[in-house]
């Protein structure tokens, strides 16, 4: 269980002004309206055990969610001219494979934008959460 009670006990003065400060600080410990206090663990692969068709690749990855993608698939600063904004939704393995094999563009994107996204995916380092999705996207040589 989390902490049992207020973490920093302050000596209670009889002075009204001194009592207001600890109360406010304790209130802040409860977090603000709008701040999040619940994070659900969603391991990308483990939750889809056995069904990798459902795997997805966010473009860009969550660690770089603010970056844009240039035509070569490299991460660049937001609003860089000629670059594309992050994909609104993660791309599914099926969508990416379709783009690789048949040149089919991703929903709501142009041909060039789709190519930029695919180039980004080609450059992805194999991280755990993308392991099987990545394996499913490898192209044979030649």
């Amino acid at each position, binding site marked *: 269980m989390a902490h049992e009670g207020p973490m920093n006990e302050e000596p209670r003065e009889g002075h009204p002004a001194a009592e207001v400060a600890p109360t406010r600080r304790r209130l802040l410990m409860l977090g603000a309206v709008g701040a999040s206090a619940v*994070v659900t*663990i969603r*391991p*990308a*692969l*483990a*939750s889809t*055990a*056995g069904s*990798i*068709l459902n795997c997805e690749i966010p473009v860009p990855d969550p660690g770089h969610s603010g970056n844009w993608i240039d035509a070569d698939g490299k991460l660049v600063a937001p609003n860089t001219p000629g670059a594309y904004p992050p994909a609104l939704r993660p791309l599914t*393995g*099926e969508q990416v*494979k379709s783009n*690789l*094999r048949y040149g089919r563009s991703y929903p709501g994107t142009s041909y060039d934008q789709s190519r930029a996204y695919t180039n980004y995916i*080609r450059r992805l*380092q*194999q*991280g*755990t*959460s993308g*392991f*099987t999705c*990545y*394996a*499913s*996207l*490898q*192209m*044979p*040589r*030649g």
Partner: protein
Amino acid sequence: MHSFTVRIGPVGFRVGSAWPRPVAALEAIYAGYPGPRDGIADFTVRLEPERPWRRFVRPSVAIRGDFILPDAVPMALRHGFLAAEMGMNLQMALGQRRFLLLHASAVERDGRVLLMTGESGAGKSTLAALLGERGWRLMGDEFALVDPVSGLIHAFPRAVSLKNAAIAMLRAEASEDRFGPELDGTPKGTLRHLRPRADAVARMDEPAAPALLLFPRYGHDRAIRPMGEAEIFVRLTQASTNYVALGEAGHAALARLVKTVPTRAIDYPDSAAALAIVDMLWAEQAR
């Protein structure tokens, strides 16, 4: 069908292949490894032609088996050995239930285990291979197997996957006969696999207790940072392919690991710096 069987630690595999070459490569790099217990494989991998006529014409290897990627794009025949290794990884990633799997390398010294986890390129395989040549026992470079009951790490010493510059580094240290085929033009660049040393193979059934967990990052100025338990826990759930599938046992095993194993994030500019950091931190935890 050409066939190959092997036991890697507690897991037995059978690899069936429509072509002889990948099986020959597997036989060579895993020579001397035991076979599956009672001859029964836990997982099967099959390397098959994508279409029947692709067995001979521009051969195209589809990775199939107990657990598959139904729409996986096939691989060239000259990467067949890599396809087999990926197939074995896939079976573990999707099918392993007895052990909590962490995407981490593991090396053992004095009965205790150093775990290194992180994204591809972080250096966990390269560092594990280098440590394996410096008196540490290599337990694995891809998966660390955590026993949910005992908390011990069980060895899974597959061939170590080395990329690009790391290949040359290890070729300077390990004899030529320990290397698998050179695989160029893979999506990850040039790959080569390194067979673990004889002691790593001989002792593959000796588990050991985890004593230090590192999150290495290659290509940064040297830095060592503590990590909060919550951050470690969440990162490890991302580094585990079966945390959710193991349910309560997985949660307990991971919480126990986080609570009991000292952990650091380390940044390093080159492997010499990393090895020095490892020596220092290992000496600290041994006290």
